[in-house]
């Protein structure tokens, strides 16, 4: 199968759009077979376009794990942190099903339920499949997904198929046991803890076998990889080649998150995560081989809502108990809301197609590219204030078009509450973190930018802009690029950023 590469087509025809988020093929996924596109078109985690409109949730029903990864600490349990494998509240399958039905009723944009931990879903098969069975019976319109390290995967492919779980994510960080020995200290296999390369070899074989079995049955497989500088960075190019050749439809390279306070091996031993540029360079290198995913938010195992948000606190067990839900009515409401979203997406697409025929270069050929950050609350438009944003979506504009680079999360929004801005030293710290996360950007486009951060952004070489409020993200990025070119901005060398 010939895979067209998303957003990497630097030799795009003049006047065409080379963006991963625009163009006449839906979501830049035009190269995928129709059946696959149909399956992913409203899946926020798999379709970059869909993630502006549709919501997902994870339920934390799977606490046990059958391997140890050096980026994971099984003691972790925290309400204020956002990382994979972190949860606040473990649920029984019954509680989880109740929570899913409550969320799907309150947030009708929801299309997807995933089980992703906090351990490995397939190391807890009874709990995971009991949850799926109940959802499948009561809300058959909800898509079911699971994410696994792959060790137990070959044993459960039949059940995955029977429950119509048609999206599985396998985390594959290596295909070489020697590399694996630096990532996985042990696996539990055939009633024994097996350490080092021997254990890693078993894990790798099971992952590859599980991948092949799923693909034979037509189940969609995405591969996640954690980019660990100096451990598997170069090696991931080979991983990408192999999983693509076997038929995985998407490869998601995520940055290692490692801090000493997490108590993980990598955190304590001082292993660093990749820089923004290292991540995007490796994604580009792998994209030479296949469809890459760049909008991943590395969600908690109990996240709820649109990808950029987490509304988990609205759905704690006591709050769910108090809710009275009519499944039938909720499902009808979802169908209506989804139809509305699709009509809106169709209209946007039609508009785009019309415009594509007339589009010219965004700037004279040879103009350097610029990275532009935007803030959104969803819906694919600029509708979030700078001060309220806890994440920024970064795009790269060049004369031929725009492409999505990835999200940048910050721990704290600049403003504390709707009308409360931080003061004193705290303000500086919060803004510094934001400026740091946007260091490769030449502009930030928000629905509104306050006077104080405005001047700080300018001083940091990032042009603030509030003129594109409520415009489509894509139009705003193109417009902002034009503005920068008109102003004769001084372009940032995007490869120098790798050093920072």
């Amino acid at each position, binding site marked *: 199968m010939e895979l067209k590469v998303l957003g990497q087509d630097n030799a795009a025809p003049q006047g065409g759009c080379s963006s991963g988020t625009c163009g006449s093929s839906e979501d830049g996924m035009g190269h995928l077979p129709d059946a696959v596109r149909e399956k992913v078109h409203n899946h926020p985690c798999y379709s970059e376009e869909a993630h502006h409109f549709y919501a997902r949730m994870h339920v934390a029903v799977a*606490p*046990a*794990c*059958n391997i*140890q990864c*050096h980026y994971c*600490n*099984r*003691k972790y*349990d925290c309400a204020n942190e956002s990382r994979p494998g972190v949860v606040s509240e*473990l649920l029984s399958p019954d509680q989880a099903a109740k929570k899913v039905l409550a969320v799907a009723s309150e947030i009708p944009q929801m299309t997807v339920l995933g089980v992703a931990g906090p*351990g490995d879903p397939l*190391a*807890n098969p*009874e709990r995971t499949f009991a949850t799926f069975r109940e959802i499948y019976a009561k809300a058959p319109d909800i898509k079911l997904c699971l994410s696994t390290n792959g060790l137990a995967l070959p044993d459960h492919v039949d059940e995955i198929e029977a429950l119509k779980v048609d999206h599985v994510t396998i985390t594959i960080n290596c295909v070489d046991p020697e590399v694996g020995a630096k990532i996985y*200290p*042990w696996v*539990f296999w055939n*009633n*024994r*803890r097996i350490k080092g390369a021997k254990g890693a070899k078993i894990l790798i074989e099971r992952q590859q076998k599980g991948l092949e079995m799923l693909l034979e049955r037509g189940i969609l497989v995405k591969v996640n990889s954690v980019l660990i500088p100096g451990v598997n960075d170069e090696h991931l190019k080979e991983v990408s080649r192999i999983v693509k050749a076997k038929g995985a439809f998407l490869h998601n390279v995520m940055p290692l998150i490692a801090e*000493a*306070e997490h*108590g*993980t*091996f990598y*955190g*304590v*031993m001082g292993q660093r995560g990749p820089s923004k540029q290292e991540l995007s360079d490796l994604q580009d290198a792998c994209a030479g081989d296949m469809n890459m995913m760049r909008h991943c938010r590395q969600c908690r195992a109990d996240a709820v809502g649109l990808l950029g948000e987490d509304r988990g606190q609205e759905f704690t067990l006591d709050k769910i108990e108090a809710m009275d839900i009519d499944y039938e009515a909720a499902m009808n409401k979802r169908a209506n809301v989804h139809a509305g979203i699709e009509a809106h997406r169709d209209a946007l697409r039609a508009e785009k197609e019309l415009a594509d025929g007339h589009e010219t270069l965004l700037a004279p050929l040879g103009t350097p590219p610029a990275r532009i950050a935007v803030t959104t609350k969803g819906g694919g438009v600029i509708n979030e204030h700078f001060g309220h944003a806890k994440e920024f979506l970064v795009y790269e504009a060049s004369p031929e078009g725009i492409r999505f680079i990835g999200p940048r999360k910050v721990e704290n929004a600049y403003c504390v509450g709707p009308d409360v801005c931080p003061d004193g030293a705290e303000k500086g710290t919060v803004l510094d973190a934001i400026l740091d996360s946007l260091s490769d950007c030449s502009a930030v486009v928000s629905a509104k930018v306050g006077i104080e951060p405005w001047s700080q952004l300018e001083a940091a070489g990032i042009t603030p802009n509030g003129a594109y409020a409520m415009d489509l993200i894509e139009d705003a990025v193109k417009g902002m690029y034009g503005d920068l070119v008109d102003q004769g901005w001084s372009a940032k060398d995007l490869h120098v950023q790798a050093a920072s």
Partner: protein
Amino acid sequence: MALSIIESCVNCYACEPLCPSQAISLSGQHFLIDGTKCTECDGDYADPQCAEICPIEGAILNAAGEAINPLGSLTGIPPFKMAQAMAEIQAR
């Protein structure tokens, strides 16, 4: 002859289904081993299953009260490194 689980257990449920004697149950704050049922997997497995899968160093003790998985044995973090990192965090 029995093993025990202590309060550093994180309630991950991994051990419970593996026990050939159904000696493990969630009780109060964490999982516990019923000393009257535990056989240390003698006759069933080469190694006690709970201690083989447990991800938490020090959480499972042998009959002599010693950690079956001592500090550093599962994560690979040398204990002095962990102590150093924790001291640095405390000092901040």
